[in-house]
């Protein structure tokens, strides 16, 4: 018998063997996926069109704002620049959030199920490549394009600095929320793809999930708050099902997180975005929503760049008086939370969203790994065991 030549495969083991193999596997999947996705000019034509649309949108928002400020009664023209900057920031950020919220999960919703449908997954799982590497490789290569779109928008976003009203830290916060949202919803799409056999079903479930996360959470919060209004003594009643408003629902909504980021650009409490966030998810329970009378719209913006306010803009504890100086601006008091990285304050919403989605990404990825792995599945992911015994059951040896 001819001697079997040694396989030219990296020897398994040593210390970092598992890590190196995982990286090699992720790279293998990534190279393969990107070869398919990025071949030809298609990807770059789409990128160009995307940037043109985003730029056109920003320009239109700028025009609208400019038009408003040409009315001499609209406000002091000194505040026009910051107001325009904030409007462009809000418009572009929310549009990009919308894009990420749908693009990221739909680009992963077929990642595994397409391989199943095309019967290539079996070829893949019989290689020594780990299920973990398959899942991570698929996720990253699907998200690379989303990240590319996000990164390509940075120069466009920088236009807001021309107008002012938005600080660099606001933009950084916005991008952190975007990237984490892409990761979280991308892994949600991947989980659907690995659990559901057909891509069409997986995509449908994914989109339904996205709608639930974005629209559903807001609706539930509105519903709960409407049902659990104040009683005669001014105390808040519990809402439906006898439980209080499930505010954590607001944490998973990327749009609310972005509204919270936008709130950070507003100079005084009670600005439009802050009211939205406070209205749906008061950061202090039964917090008092202070309306400064301006109500909605852009509240008197301050010249750029905005310093991180030392005063909590929202989440006033009940009964805590807020000191106001001569100009009507709040002054620092001892309820101010310590500054955190990127100006994250303890009472803001977006860091919760970021933490929530990072955690859920890990959870979704682990579940996906189990669903992809052909043999070593966790019990609860298995289909229910057979009920009846087969009539021709043999006397098999003990398992």
């Amino acid at each position, binding site marked *: 018998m001819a001697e079997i030549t040694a396989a030219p495969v990296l020897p398994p083991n040593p210390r970092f063997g598992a890590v190196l193999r995982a990286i090699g596997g992720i790279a*293998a999947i990534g190279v393969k996926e990107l070869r398919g996705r990025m071949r030809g000019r298609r990807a770059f034509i789409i990128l160009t069109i995307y940037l043109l649309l985003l730029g056109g949108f920003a320009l239109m928002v700028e025009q609208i704002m400019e038009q408003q400020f040409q009315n001499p009664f609209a406000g002091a023209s000194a505040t026009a620049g910051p107001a325009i900057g904030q409007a462009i920031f809000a418009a572009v950020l929310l549009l990009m959030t919308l894009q990420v919220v749908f693009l990221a999960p739909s680009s992963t919703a077929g990642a595994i199920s397409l391989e199943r449908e095309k019967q*290539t997954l079996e070829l893949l799982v019989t290689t020594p490549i780990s299920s973990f590497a398959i899942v991570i490789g698929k996720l990253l290569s699907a998200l690379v394009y989303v990240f590319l779109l996000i990164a390509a928008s940075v120069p466009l976003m920088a236009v807001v600095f021309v107008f002012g009203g938005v600080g660099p830290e606001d933009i950084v916060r916005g991008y952190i929320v975007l990237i984490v949202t892409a990761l979280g919803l991308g892994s949600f799409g991947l989980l659907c793809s690995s659990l559901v056999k057909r891509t069409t079903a997986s995509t449908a479930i994914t989109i339904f999930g996205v709608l639930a996360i974005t629209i559903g959470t807001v609706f539930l919060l509105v519903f709960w708050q409407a049902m659990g209004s104040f009683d005669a003594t001014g105390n808040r009643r519990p809402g439906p099902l006898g439980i209080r408003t499930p505010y954590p629902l607001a944490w998973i909504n990327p749009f609310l997180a972005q509204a919270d980021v936008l709130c950070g650009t507003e100079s005084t409490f009670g600005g439009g975005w802050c009211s939205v966030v406070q209205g749906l998810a008061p950061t202090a329970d039964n917090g008092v929503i202070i309306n400064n009378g301006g109500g909605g719209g852009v509240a008197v913006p301050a010249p750029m760049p905005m310093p991180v306010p030392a005063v909590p803009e929202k989440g006033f504890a009940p009964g805590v008086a807020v000191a106001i100086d001569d100009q009507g601006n709040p002054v620092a008091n001892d309820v101010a939370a310590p500054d955190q990285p990127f100006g994250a304050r303890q009472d803001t919403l977006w860091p919760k969203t970021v933490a929530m989605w990072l955690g859920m990404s890990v959870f979704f990825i682990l579940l996906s790994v189990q669903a992809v792995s052909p*043999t070593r599945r966790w019990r609860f992911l298995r289909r229910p065991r*057979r009920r009846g015994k087969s009539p*021709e059951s043999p006397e098999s040896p003990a398992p």
Partner: protein
Amino acid sequence: MTEIVRTEGLVKRYDGTLAVAGVDLTVDAGEIFGLVGPNGAGKTTTLRILATLLAPSAGTAEIAGMSVTRNPDQVRRVIGFMPDSFGVYDDMKVWEYLDFFARCYGIAPAARRRVITDLLELVDLAPKRHEYVQTLSRGMQQRLCLAHSLVHDPQVLLLDEPASGLDPRARVELRELLRELRAMGKTILISSHILPELEELCTSVAIIDRGQVLAQGRVAEIEKRLRFGAVLRVKLLLEGEALEAARDRLAGDDDVASAVLLDDGTIELGFRGDDEATARLLKETVAAGLPVVSFSRAASDLEELFLQVTAADEPVAAA
């Protein structure tokens, strides 16, 4: 011969149905081992368990001494698997396809280039190197899939219905390729419900039906063991009544169970005896003055054997 694949009491149940009901297989290194059986007999399930794609409900399976359930990662390094229906990636060139799988096995870049060139040469796809995979013909895709299962130079090849959907020419080419691989020292497990294609190729077979191995061993051994009788065809230079008289005379022999006169004048004998008895019968026939034109044992092929063994109640698809 050292054994390289062994299963013991392999059982696989799918929600209430028993796909594999206690399969014991032993395959020696360097063999081309055929799994024969009708559709739904459990061939594919058995191969998929060996390929670490399915966990058996009971029983053990080992490849090169490693358990497919306990050490799937190690097993995957020594096997190359080609499923019965396999997909190809769109948007991928032939060399990229092989490059991808070579990367999956962690083969270093320089070795990868060499392996891809060698394999494309082996499966006769070298001129197609830069073509897109989906533009290849079915036979070429099959060969490409076979090449993919060879990138890591596995000891054992598990091929599930590799010739299905191939035209006769592609089938011959595949057979040649498998012989070549055997000469390179690979052990090949191949499943098929098309018997002639295995008969010429396999050194050993296991006949599987309804999840159980009915017979296993070298093709010749199985034939010997299972043959309860042979069919002898005798052609005499006689016609009409003389021929019938000759048939009656042959039917009178102790070892002859039945004698049928066929339309073309051949007498077909159901014969119980061994080779010696066959020689004796021929000698007696000649001695009796009957003009023997030909006297032969009907070649019993695998197909006949298979029908005998399975006594299938459903017609066996055979080419």
